[in-house]
Each structure stands twice: as structure tokens, then as C-alpha cells.
């Protein structure tokens, strides 16, 4: 017990433990006082306590809370407690704080067993999927309307998003696909060189790009760049009650907000996929002409003889499906935002995660369909 101890103890005339505070009860002293008083109150021999506040010149909120905590502690321990000699201004302050204490509390969420929570999770997922399906339905409905009246459509908005999602993504997409082309060519070359089949590197790289890699990588980039941006934009509008304002003004939100974004991605995705094919081939040509003794001409000629129209078209069709899914899920997550900035963050993350999941899921289904169609 160091110097300047915040209170003195003694016995009152009735033999109770008397605690006379010697310092103001404030944020600075509350911790020390609480520690000592709670130890004293917990001792068996102290059945009743008297707090003497005659020397207390100041009580702040922490001091008031301290007195309340001591009171609560004494009630729980069955210790009788009484305060005495409070200076009038402090007494007034404490009474002011005691005015009226409304009691109401929010029911806490039920916490069930592991199995229950897993069940709840599944139900939630099913409901979410149903909501998403409904959302897609509403967008397709307004899309059909827009096709009938294209003049009413907000083209300027679409071109804005086309620029953001499309042309602004070209540099990074080129870089990614070029490097992918380089890596693939090297990997293929190691195997094929053993059989002197260098030239088939071109077949392998170009087929993989056109049918699978270019569409999937483009879609992943779109999900990361644009799906998330859509969710964040719509989410922020939701938080600021902008969406509410728009809908009471009579705007159809799927048409006004979602459609331009979906259309922008639908236009951007196939173009970007072609660009990705090109970048991948440039990577392949670069490696094969430097280290595989293939001229660019022979590489391209091999590609020309191998690749069929259906390879390219199948890839572009895939991209189109991915693009629609990414745009829809991005907007859907944005609309799902509840109040608060953290919710925007969560929905943005969810937009990317759901986007990636949908890409892979749709890719699997489309690949199976293509297989049966013989594409």
C-alpha cells in the first residue's frame, strides 16, 4: 500500500467497518479504490460497511460508477452498506444521475447446439439462394422490357461502367495472361520436347486458353474488380438511404441501378476474353521463339489449323454467362447491405466470394454440357 492511499479504514460507533475516502473519486483513483474496497467487502468479518465521503471534494462519472459498483457488490455479498457525510454538490450530482432508470433490454439471440446452428445456416443459405433467384428474375424481366424499348435505356451509364470494368482492366489482364502464357508454354515445352513434339505446344496453349483459361481468368478478374465495386457502390447508397429515396421517387431499382451494370459486363467480358486470348498467345509465342526454336509464324499457323470456331465461341459463351452472374451477384450483395459501414465491407467480400464460387460452378456445368454436345 503505497503513499497517498485513497482511503482510511476505521470502526464506526456501531462497530461497522468505516471507509473514509481521502481523495476525489475520479477516473484516476477508481481502479485503486475498487480493488481495495472489493477485497474488504469480500472478507467474512466485514458484515457491514460505511462509506464516509466527507473529505471527497469531487466525484466524476467514474466515481459515481464506482459507488454504484460497490453498492452492487455489497448487495450480492449480503453486506450492509451505508454512505454518510456527502457534500451537497456531490449529493446533488449523484441524485441527478439516479433520476429514473428505465429498464429495457434487447432479447439476446438464441444460441443453439452445433447441429441447430448448422441447420439454421443451411436454411439461411437456401433462403439466400431463393432471394438471389428472385433478384435475377426481376432483372431479367426489366431486361426484356429494355430490349423492347432500347431508346429508354440509360446507355451513358452503361458506357461509364463499361469503361471502368472493361478498358481500365486491360493492362492488368494483359499482364496476367501474358505471364500465364509464358508459364504454360514453359511447362508444356518441358514435356513435349522429350518427344520432339515442340510444335504441339502451340496447340496445347491455344486450346487451353480459348476453351478454359481466358474465360475463367477474365471472369475472376471481373469478380475481383467489378463485382466488388458494384456491391460497395450499391451498399454505400443503401447506407445513405439513397436507394430508399430513389424508390420513393418512383424509380425501378433493378432497371435503374442493376441493368446498366449487367449490360456493361456483358459487353466487356467477351471483348476482354479475346484480349486475354491474345495476351496469352503473345506470351506463348515469346517463349517458344526464344527457347523452343519455333518461329512466330509457325506457332500461329499451328494455332490456325488447330483452333476451331466452336472453341472460341464456346469460350465466349462461357464468359458471357460468368459476366452475367458476376454482375448480378455483385448487385445482389449490394442490395443485401444492412445499415452500417462494416456491412458494406462484408457484402463486398461476399460479392467476390460468391462471384468466384458461381464462376467455378457454372464452368463445371457448362463443361459437362459442352461435352455432351460434342463442342
Amino acid at each position, binding site marked *: 500500500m503505497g503513499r497517498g492511499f485513497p482511503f482510511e479504514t476505521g470502526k464506526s460507533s456501531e462497530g461497522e467497518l468505516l471507509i473514509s475516502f481521502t481523495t476525489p473519486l475520479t*477516473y484516476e483513483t477508481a*481502479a485503486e479504490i475498487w480493488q481495495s474496497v472489493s477485497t474488504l467487502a469480500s472478507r467474512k468479518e466485514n458484515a457491514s460497511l460505511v462509506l464516509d465521503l466527507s473529505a471527497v471534494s469531487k466525484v466524476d*462519472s467514474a466515481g459515481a*460508477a464506482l459507488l454504484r*459498483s460497490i453498492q*452492487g457488490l455489497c448487495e450480492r455479498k449480503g453486506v450492509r452498506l451505508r454512505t454518510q457525510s456527502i457534500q451537497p454538490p456531490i449529493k446533488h450530482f449523484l441524485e441527478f444521475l439516479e433520476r429514473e432508470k428505465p*429498464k429495457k433490454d434487447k432479447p439476446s439471440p438464441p444460441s443453439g447446439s452445433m447441429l441447430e446452428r448448422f441447420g439454421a445456416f443451411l436454411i439461411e443459405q437456401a433462403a439466400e439462394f431463393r432471394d438471389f433467384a428472385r433478384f435475377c428474375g426481376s432483372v431479367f424481366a426489366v431486361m426484356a422490357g429494355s430490349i423492347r424499348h432500347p431508346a429508354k435505356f440509360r446507355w451513358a451509364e452503361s458506357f461509364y461502367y463499361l469503361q471502368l470494368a472493361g478498358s481500365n482492366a486491360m493492362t492488368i489482364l494483359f499482364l496476367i495472361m501474358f505471364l500465364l502464357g509464358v508459364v504454360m508454354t514453359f511447362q508444356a515445352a518441358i514435356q513435349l520436347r522429350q518427344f520432339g513434339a515442340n510444335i504441339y505446344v502451340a496447340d496445347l496453349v491455344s486450346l487451353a486458353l480459348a476453351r478454359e483459361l481466358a474465360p475463367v481468368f477474365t471472369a475472376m478478374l471481373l469478380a475481383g474488380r467489378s463485382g466488388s465495386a458494384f456491391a460497395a457502390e450499391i451498399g454505400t447508397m443503401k447506407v445513405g438511404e439513397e436507394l430508399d429515396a430513389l424508390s420513393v421517387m418512383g424509380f425501378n431499382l433493378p432497371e435503374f441501378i442493376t441493368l446498366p451494370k449487367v449490360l456493361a459486363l456483358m459487353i466487356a467480358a467477351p471483348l476482354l476474353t479475346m484480349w486475354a486470348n491474345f495476351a496469352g498467345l503473345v506470351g506463348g509465342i515469346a517463349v517458344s521463339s526464344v527457347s523452343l526454336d519455333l518461329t512466330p509464324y509457325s506457332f500461329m499457323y499451328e494455332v490456325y489449323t488447330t483452333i476451331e470456331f466452336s472453341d472460341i465461341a464456346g469460350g465466349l459463351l462461357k464468359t458471357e454467362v460468368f459476366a452475367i452472374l458476376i454482375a448480378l451477384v455483385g448487385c445482389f450483395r449490394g442490395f443485401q447491405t444492412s*445499415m*452500417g459501414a462494416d456491412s458494406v465491407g462484408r457484402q463486398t467480400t461476399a460479392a467476390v466470394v460468391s462471384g468466384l464460387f458461381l464462376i467455378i460452378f457454372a464452368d463445371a456445368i457448362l463443361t459437362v454440357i459442352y461435352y455432351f454436345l460434342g463442342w
Partner: protein
Amino acid sequence: MPADSANNSTSERAICAENVSLGYGDRTILKDVSFCVEQGQIVTVLGGSGSGKSTLMKGLIGLLKPTKGRVRLYGKDIFETGAEAWLEWARRRIGVLFQSGALIGSLTLGENIALPIREFSNVPKEILPEIVRLKLEMVRLGGYESYYPAELSGGMKKRAGLARAIALDPKTLFCDEPTEGLDPVISAEMDNLLMELNRVLGITMVVVTHDLPSIKAISDWSIMVDGEARGIIATGPPNELENSSDSRVYDFFHRIARPVNSERR
């Protein structure tokens, strides 16, 4: 404490603005504003909507750097080079209620209020919830600990913002329209709360408001700013300003609408 270290004539002054000009970009909102707030006073800042009251408050708490002049907090220039550490120290002794409430959306009300207390004081964890409850009761939000800001009405957010601003019993409290959006009864209660905090804990207050009853109830002193004059057009106790000969001040206190053609902007 800063008041002790500054042993000069400004030591009783909590806040001093000296020829302060404030603006955004090239646009000057307030020009050459000077005034002082004594410790323990409640000063209200009055003025029409868009006249620069919030801007002035941002200048006083160091969120907006003056383009000219100095703001002194307990005698020390808050934008002096090398004063960054001091400003941080001082800010923990300042409470600010923003016009929007500015609660952290990802935290419940209880956590919002506990945040500064847990961070900047060493109160034991047994007492912390008690302080939080006390603060919420002060603003008549007892029992709302577990609500998120998004689940509250506008006026409730305002009150919760006030509870957070006074969480640490600051030496100085800045409030931007504490009674905006509140019904007359709760407005009066908030006025009482501010006066009680001022009286018992000696908290100096700068309160931005254009709520007439509230101005008359709480002000020791008022400062009136005007958008067109870009500065202070009157200072004094509210009952003096009420009978001012300046028509702009008189109209403000007597709710007289200005003729349409005199409106600029």
C-alpha cells in the same frame, strides 16, 4: 495539465481563436474570427443554416487547419509544429459531439461508449459497464446498450453521440447541435444535462445550436456568425443579443423571415 504549464494571462482561457480564417479549398467561409472561451463557461455559437458554425467547430478542435490565424487550446497553439503529441494528449481531454452523431456502426451503443474509456483510462472491467450504463441513462437511453446505431432514430443517435462525447468526463466539450431532432421535453433534459455537467464537473462547453429555448437556457455567452459577413456579427449574453439593434441578430431571435429578394447565393 496544459493550464498549469501555460503561466500567462491566457491560462484561464480554455479556447482562444485569434484572427482565424477557415475555408475549404479556395472558398473562405469565415474570415478573421477572434474570440475566447473562459474555463467553466458555456458558450453557444449561433447562426443560420450554412453560416459556418460546424466549420468553426472543426477549426477549434483541429480537424480543419485555419488558413490564417491561430487557435489556442489552454494557451497552446494546436497547429504549432511539434505540437502533434500534445494535440493528441489534449484531444483525449476533449469531448466532441458531431452533427451526425458519428457513432461507429459496427459497435453497439455500449461498445461505442466503452471504446474511449477502455482505451484511455484504467478503470477496472467491473466498473466499466456501470459507467456505460450511467452515461446512457444520462442521455435517457438506459437499456439500449446492446443496440446498434443503425437501429436507432436520428434523435437517439444524437443522444448516444453525446453520451460518447462525455464518456471520459472531458475538460472541454464541443457539441454540434445537441438538441437537433429532439422533442421539446428531451431537448430540455439535454439542456439540463449540459448545465449539470458544467456545474458539477466544471466542463467548459462550446455548443453550436440554433434552438432558441436552448440558447436562452444554457448560454453564459453567445457568438453569432453570419454567412454573408463571413464572421462574427455579435457576441454577448443571449438576453442582450435578443434586443440587439442589428436586424440580422434581432431577426434570428424573433424568427422573422427575410424578404425573398434579400437572399443571396
